[in-house]
């Protein structure tokens, strides 16, 4: 059978049959995703039901929006939302620009051995678990033999119990996040920087531009696209706020300011066994995250002329 151009001689069915082995290649992952990603999406209907263990998710009776109303009118609602957005906001404000700054500084280094050494070191924290990072923090900031408190002691200052005090929670979250992610985050900015043609700088210098002007008019516009894409991801993940990290740094003393949507879902669901209620909170988060990604993607398309789809 020939189509209009005469160059396709096979029907769709034939082409599918020809590629049958490739569908076999795809099969394991498709099944895995159907079971472990798509089925839980269906399972999220639990948010609108009253869970009955014997009947399962499918057979449990519907209760409409009850759980959503309970959640949005509960006293925890605003505090959890506020904490989530505060932590994410602080991270976007401080942890987002950090790798850009590091990349700019590394880009100015002319000794390539020194540059490489610093880069290699900076990747290490990215590869260790948050459990390890929090263990390191515990030792470094320990009131018993920790180096920070030892230095304080040398200046006759009283010991501070950093990980247990509420006021140090946000600073610790931001600083540990920068410490863990800044080196890894700088990789893509460095690659974007290496793509900028050196001739641009040479002609700018001939025109009398200094370093600051070069950075402002050549370097930053050169990595604008990359910053845009990374910004979409950062804002799209606004409601995540760094689940692992927060969960590990949570202490009774900082619970009022450290409880975020994910940790709250986990606690109500797995610790207190309120499955339907926790599912509703999770679904609330998923829906808003999805919306955020769509919105930021559209904004990025408008302002940076880039998008992730």
């Amino acid at each position, binding site marked *: 059978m020939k189509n209009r151009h005469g160059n396709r001689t096979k029907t769709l069915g034939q082409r599918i049959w020809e*590629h049958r*082995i490739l*569908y076999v*290649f*795809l099969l*394991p*992952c498709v099944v*895995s995703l159907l*079971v*472990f990603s798509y*089925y*839980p*999406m*269906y*399972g*999220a209907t*639990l948010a609108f039901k009253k869970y009955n263990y014997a009947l399962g*998710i499918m057979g449990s009776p519907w209760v409409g929006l009850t759980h959503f109303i309970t959640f949005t009118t509960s006293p925890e609602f605003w505090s959890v939302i506020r904490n989530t957005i505060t932590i994410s906001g602080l991270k976007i404000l401080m942890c987002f620009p950090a790798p850009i700054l*590091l990349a700019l500084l590394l880009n*100015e*280094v002319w000794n390539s051995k*020194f540059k490489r050494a*610093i880069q290699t*070191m*900076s990747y*290490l924290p990215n*590869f*260790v*678990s948050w*459990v*390890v990072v929090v*263990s*390191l*923090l*515990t*030792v470094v900031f320990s009131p*018993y*033999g920790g*180096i920070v408190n*030892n230095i304080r*002691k040398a200046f006759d200052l009283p010991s501070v*119990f950093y990980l*247990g005090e509420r006021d140090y929670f946000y600073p610790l979250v931001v600083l540990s996040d920068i410490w863990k992610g800044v080196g*890894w985050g700088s*990789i*893509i900015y460095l*690659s974007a920087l290496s793509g900028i043609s050196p001739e641009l700088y040479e002609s700018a*210098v001939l025109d009398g531009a200094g370093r600051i002007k070069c950075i402002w008019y050549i370097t930053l516009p050169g990595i604008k696209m990359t910053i845009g894409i990374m910004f979409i991801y950062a804002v799209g993940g606004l409601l995540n706020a760094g689940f692992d990290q927060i969960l590990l740094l949570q*202490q009774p003393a900082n619970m009022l300011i450290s409880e975020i949507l994910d940790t709250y*879902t*986990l606690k109500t*669901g*797995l610790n207190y066994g309120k*499955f339907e209620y*926790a*599912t509703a909170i999770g*679904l609330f988060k998923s829906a808003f995250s*999805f919306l955020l*990604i769509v919105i930021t993607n559209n904004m990025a398309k408008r302002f940076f002329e880039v998008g992730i*789809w």
Partner: protein
Amino acid sequence: MKFTTRAQKIFQVFNTVFLSLFGFITLFPFWYVLVASFNVGSDFTRGGVYFWPRMFTLENYERAFRDPRIFASLGVSVSRTLLGVLLGLVFTALIAYAVSVETLPGRMGFTFFFYFTTIFGGGMIPYYILLRDLGLTKSFWLYVIPSVYSFFNFLLMRTYFQTIPAELRESAEIDGAGHVRVLFQIYAPLSAPIIATLALFIGVGHWNDWFTGAYYQSRTALFPAATLLQKLLRESSPSSMREGQETVLETMRTFTPQSLQMAFVMILTMPIVIVYPFLQKYYVKGVMIGAVKG
């Protein structure tokens, strides 16, 4: 381009000092805990040990390896990491290859099917109920089966496969080679950099995952090392340490729970420290490809 004015030279000096300081701050916590792990525990809590052990000992490591819980957890971590890397690489290669064949009907549909799971999910609780209903919460397979696939890894491998000229595949097909042979005998040998990168990413992901064990695993005997470390950290968390610390000092034991933990932290960190610098040139490239095409 080099600037040679005085201000530029001052900037160079400042930059070098700043970046050196940054490198120091990045590495020092690891070094500090390494020192702590080789120091007598009760001596370390007195303070003043920073750059070198004051009272050297191997006791912390001996105790760590003799602790049956730690030993078993390391076994779980090693098994899941090896198995996870192997399965992850094979399954990722299969789908990346399939989708990189441009004549495959429905390839965009499959890509979207994979992509959608990264922007929307059912949440933790339905996922947990599913794992429980499948009996995975009581099994070692909890760590391996649900996580054979990751969209990011798929994207990296697909992008790499797309750089391999399609003519190579087509000519092999003319010679009578099927897709299985093309993938394993032509693509795989050409893909060493991306395979190394993904092996590192998947391996590190498995080695570091504490969450799955802590919240989805009901058998404590099946905790991986990272989960066990988190549990130990909780037991000796700052709030409980406040009361506990004095008694530890009073009994004048040489060994403290903290020093055992430090040895454990180092046991978890060392494999990573040893492996990651060697694969640097590969994964740096991998991240760039992912960022550009992602």
